[in-house]
């Protein structure tokens, strides 16, 4: 059984159809990348999968681990193992990073009928993962993302992923705005998490991140549909040709 199965997914926001029939199957252990020009629907797809209710699904279905993902609330999807690394992580003053993360982990554990982690169980793990992402321990007690630089925010997303250990991690333009060092650290965090039980959906506008995270499959999303799929070499090709061909008529015959 596939881990994630997206069939003919249509979604709108404020009456505008953004996704116009997306089909995609992802198996455990695979890394898929979705590329595409701005406005093609990449982030919308990520948000729909994370169950943001601002997006209305008008047609199609999505199965996650055999369950209907579109019936789930955001928290249920998260507890089932869907993780979205936000393109724009939110600052939450007044809630400490460590407290927030422990609450999130315990919410997931509770969902699965497991005992809650106390601070003694949590802290060693947290500190270890902070090291992996080359983050300062002082960040632990600061408010969630408050006053973080762009790179720190993105690393904090990957840190949360590393702690929550999802089945399916969706990275929404995690590479945008990162300098090369931050990019390397983020990729290092992702690569450390690759496993036969876990799948990744890496959404990116550029090929750059894929120098560090080698995808098994690359898909090109154009005007709300997957226009082309291929292996890692497709990303390199796109780097050369750009998306110019896609911005005209998406239905035209694509370059080989």
């Amino acid at each position: 059984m596939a881990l994630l199965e997206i069939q003919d997914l249509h979604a709108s926001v404020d009456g505008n159809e953004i996704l116009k029939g997306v089909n995609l199957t992802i198996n455990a252990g695979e890394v898929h990348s979705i590329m595409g020009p701005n406005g093609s629907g990449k982030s919308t797809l990520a948000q729909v999968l994370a169950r943001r209710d601002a997006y209305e699904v008008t047609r199609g279905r999505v199965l996650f681990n055999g369950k209907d993902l579109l019936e789930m609330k955001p928290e249920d999807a998260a507890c089932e193992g869907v993780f979205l690394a936000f393109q724009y992580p939110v600052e939450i003053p007044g809630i400490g990073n460590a407290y927030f993360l422990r609450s999130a982990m315990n919410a997931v554990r509770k969902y699965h009928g497991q005992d809650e982690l106390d601070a003694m169980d949590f802290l060693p793990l947290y500190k270890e993962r902070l090291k992996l992402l080359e983050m300062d321990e002082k960040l632990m007690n600061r408010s969630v993302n408050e006053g973080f630089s762009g790179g720190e925010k993105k690393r904090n997303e990957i840190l949360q992923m590393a702690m929550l250990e999802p089945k399916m991690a969706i990275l929404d333009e995690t590479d945008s705005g990162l300098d090369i060092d931050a990019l390397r650290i983020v990729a290092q965090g992702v690569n450390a998490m690759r496993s036969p039980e876990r799948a990744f959906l890496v959404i990116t506008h550029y090929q750059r991140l894929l120098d560090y995270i080698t995808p098994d499959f690359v898909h090109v999303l154009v005007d709300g549909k997957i226009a082309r799929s291929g292996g890692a070499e497709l990303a390199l090709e796109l780097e050369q040709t750009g998306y110019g061909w896609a911005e005209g008529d998406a239905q035209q015959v694509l370059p080989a």
Partner: protein
Amino acid sequence: MKAMTAEGGNERSMIEATERLENYLEAYGEVRAEGEKREPVWLKQLREDGWSRFAAKGFPTTHDEDWRFTNIAARVRTPFRRAAMGDAGLTAKAIEEFRVAGAACQIVFLNGRFSPALSEMENLPKGLEVCALARALDCGATGCAPEGCAPEGIEQHLGRYADVRRDMFAALNTALWEDGAYLRIRRGAVIQQPVHLLYVSAGAGSEIMTNPRTLIVAEESSQAAVIEDYVSIGAEAAFSNAVTELAAGQDAVVSHFLIERENLAAFNVSTLRIEQAKGTNIATHSILLGGGVVRNNVHPVLAGEGAECLINGLYVGAGRQHLDNYMLVEHAQPHGSSRQFYNGILADEARGVFHGRIVVHKDAQRTDAKQTNRNLLLSDNARIDTKPQLEIHADDVKCTHGATIGQIEEEPLFYLRARGLDEASARNLLLYAFAAECLDRMKEPAAKEFAEKLIADRLIKLARSKQAAAPAGSLDEDGQNWEEVG
């Protein structure tokens, strides 16, 4: 009779006004009679001044600029009376739940009168004098004060700071007060544990009025924390009109906590008047969680150079609660700094008021004053009136103020949910984070822990009420956002 035709309306309303105040006149007569033999002349004069002011002006109305947003007409019509003597049958067990863990002592006032049986005042830390004010005055008069106790300082401070000319509640309190706490922190003494003053209203079937009067004298270089805590037992309406004068000597460091957690029928007016000498560092924390109609007046005067004042507060209202905060910060000398931070959470039809007035007098150069008022409205029917007022007579000052009104935002809510927290928990966490900003500004561990628990309990109750759990609507049309620098 003739006048009735032309002036009938006015006359009638005046008669009504007088009738309305009759219960207060009666109370004043009683207080005077009871104090006739006991009280020193200066105190009788003080009462007289307070009463004549109050009798001439009466209670404020919404025509009064300082009371524009708070209508107390219905409360004024209620015939509140002084409580009968006696302990209302309360046992130590009845107030057990109100105690503060880690307090240096607890002084309990039941319906405005000191209750030695319910108080815990043994083994006081060195340098701290605590006494019921009426008792201290008696000791001062008879010269029977125990060793180390100096009630003679009362005359020097009592009634010297509260403004009976402008503030009719202060005037009424000055005329009618029966008891309260007298605290003296000796020169250089550092009192680590907070002093807990517990004011209990237990009407037991009648509408009771109390006028607690507290005097805190913090001598030079002393340090202490005081918790003034208002609670009710039973559901009766009670009117508590408290005045606290805090005289801080040079370099004194004092934290004052006001906790309002009375029942929803309570009418509570609390006035804190602070006189700050040179180099003093004062923090006031007002936590308004209960009460029906509440007015919280905080009035520090930075009367010495380089004084610092933190005015920190949180108000959480639901149902039809009305919580009014009136801040008046006066900078009278150079190099003073004041910081006001008030956060409000209002659900259902609750109404909040924040009136922040900063006055910088002519000599107060290099004043640094800042004011921030942030509000979360959890329903379409909740309301906040926020009003800054700067009055600057010096030319080299830094004064800023700002206020925000908003709702729980969708973005952080989704972020928390996307990590696995259910919607109710995510909402609670965001509410708590907003409320907890005031906790970060508290330094005393025991008092902070106490406040933390009260706030958490209040928010859990709020979350359980249906209104708060409903999703926030679109952006509030009446909402306003502004930030000014002047």
